[in-house]
């Protein structure tokens, strides 16, 4: 299920790309499988189709999708990229900000840690069997 919040400060196309990436990472789509059409997803979300198309282009640039004119988007076989030295650095900053927000809202470090492990298991099911 893809969820977006039109009131969020994060742009809509980014939310769509993030949500779809989560679906792809979790292995819900197999390589070669058809993705929903841009128009169908735009209608279901109540946004302009250009917004969804932008999200699809981003996922295509990341190697997740192959965009074929008049044939929609196809899920690609994607090799797992090797994490570089700055990969974790780029990841740590927003993660720390998110954890700080959770702690400020009253969540405990144990709860947050448990939730993170659970999310990692759920999304990367094939990696953590």
């Amino acid at each position: 299920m893809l969820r977006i919040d039109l009131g969020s400060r994060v742009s809509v196309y980014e939310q769509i790309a993030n949500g779809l990436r989560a679906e792809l990472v979790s292995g819900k789509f197999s390589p070669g499988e058809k993705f929903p059409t841009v128009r169908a997803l735009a209608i279901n979300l109540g946004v302009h189709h250009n917004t969804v198309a932008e999200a699809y282009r981003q996922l295509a640039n990341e190697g997740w999708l192959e965009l074929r004119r008049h044939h929609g988007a196809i899920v690609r076989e994607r090799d797992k990229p090797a994490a570089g030295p700055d990969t974790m650095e780029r990841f740590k900053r927003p993660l720390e900000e998110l954890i700080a927000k959770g702690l400020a809202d009253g969540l405990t470090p144990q709860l947050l840690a448990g939730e993170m492990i659970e999310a990692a298991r759920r999304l990367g099911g094939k990696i953590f069997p």
Partner: protein
Amino acid sequence: MIHPPIYIQVTIAGAIGGVAMLNAALLWFMPRLTRPDLYFAVTVSPGFRDEAEGKSILRGYRIELMIASGLALAAFVAGVALLGIGFVPVGFWVQVLAGFVVFYRARGRTLPYAMPPTMIREAEVQEKHNRVIPGGRIAAAGPFVLLAICATYLGIHGIETPARLSNHWIINGQPADFQSHTLLIYLLTTSGTLISLTLVLYGLARWVRPVYASGPERARELKFRRTTAAIVLVAEYYVVLQASWVLFVRSNDGLLRVITFPLAFVFVLVVLVVLARLGQGGSRLQGLKQKSSAVSATPVGDRTPDRYWKLGVFYFNPDDSAIFVEKRFGLGYSLNFGRPITWFILALTLMTPLIPVVAHLSRFLARFGA
């Protein structure tokens, strides 16, 4: 002045007057047939309609509706008595306009209790293909095949539309004399109507945004959408049969020609009863009250922001890719006037009945010029 026989006048007046009364009855019940988180096209808390303020607004609305319908009925009867049968459609539109004014006033009284609709949007990414049109493409192609069969029969037997069509009336009660009602005009008008209805059918399958992405609410919506699609499909078959019927029956002023009026009344009655039992978007199915979204605890409204609803009934949102959205006050779907395809559908629907008029005028002008 030539007046049609009295039994024809009574049949037409009874059928159109009956539809006007049905319209009044529908408006009476409509506030209870919409989604609970919408009241007079305004997003409110789901329980608002059962609160004192909600009930008071409904009471005022129904009193005004009774007065407006009574006035419309008086105008209808007086118009028919003084100006003849040609006034019947005018009386009908007086009733529709009065109904809108009453709705608009009730909406104004509801606005102070408005709540912001949720900004959350959900979509099922791995959606199964749900068949919306009963019978699929074969059933959708049926009316066109039927039209071709009727047209071929008429062509082979050399039957043309009679010069006078007693189902067309001008304001003084005389039958309109459309000399240009040829087989070609019959084909153009009927196929034009069929194409616009088919666009609506296709739109119900592809261009509707569901309010709910999953769960029992989604299943109810699908049932409502399928029922609406079935009604449009039946209407398509009815259009072909009615148009062909008028051509096949040769007598000019016989009751056989106006039988289509009471038939249309029965059709409208059945449609309203079926849709009212489902409630808007299937919200009355299984006697269950519509729940809030499983994800957000706040009322969801119909996920179309209030500001895009002009006068509470016209949806205008260029940033929404959906062509059809659920009506906020009514049963069925409304067009998104912010999309270009909507104007094409409207133009096609409005221009089709003008084809015989234009053909007649052009022939008249050609004769006048000669």
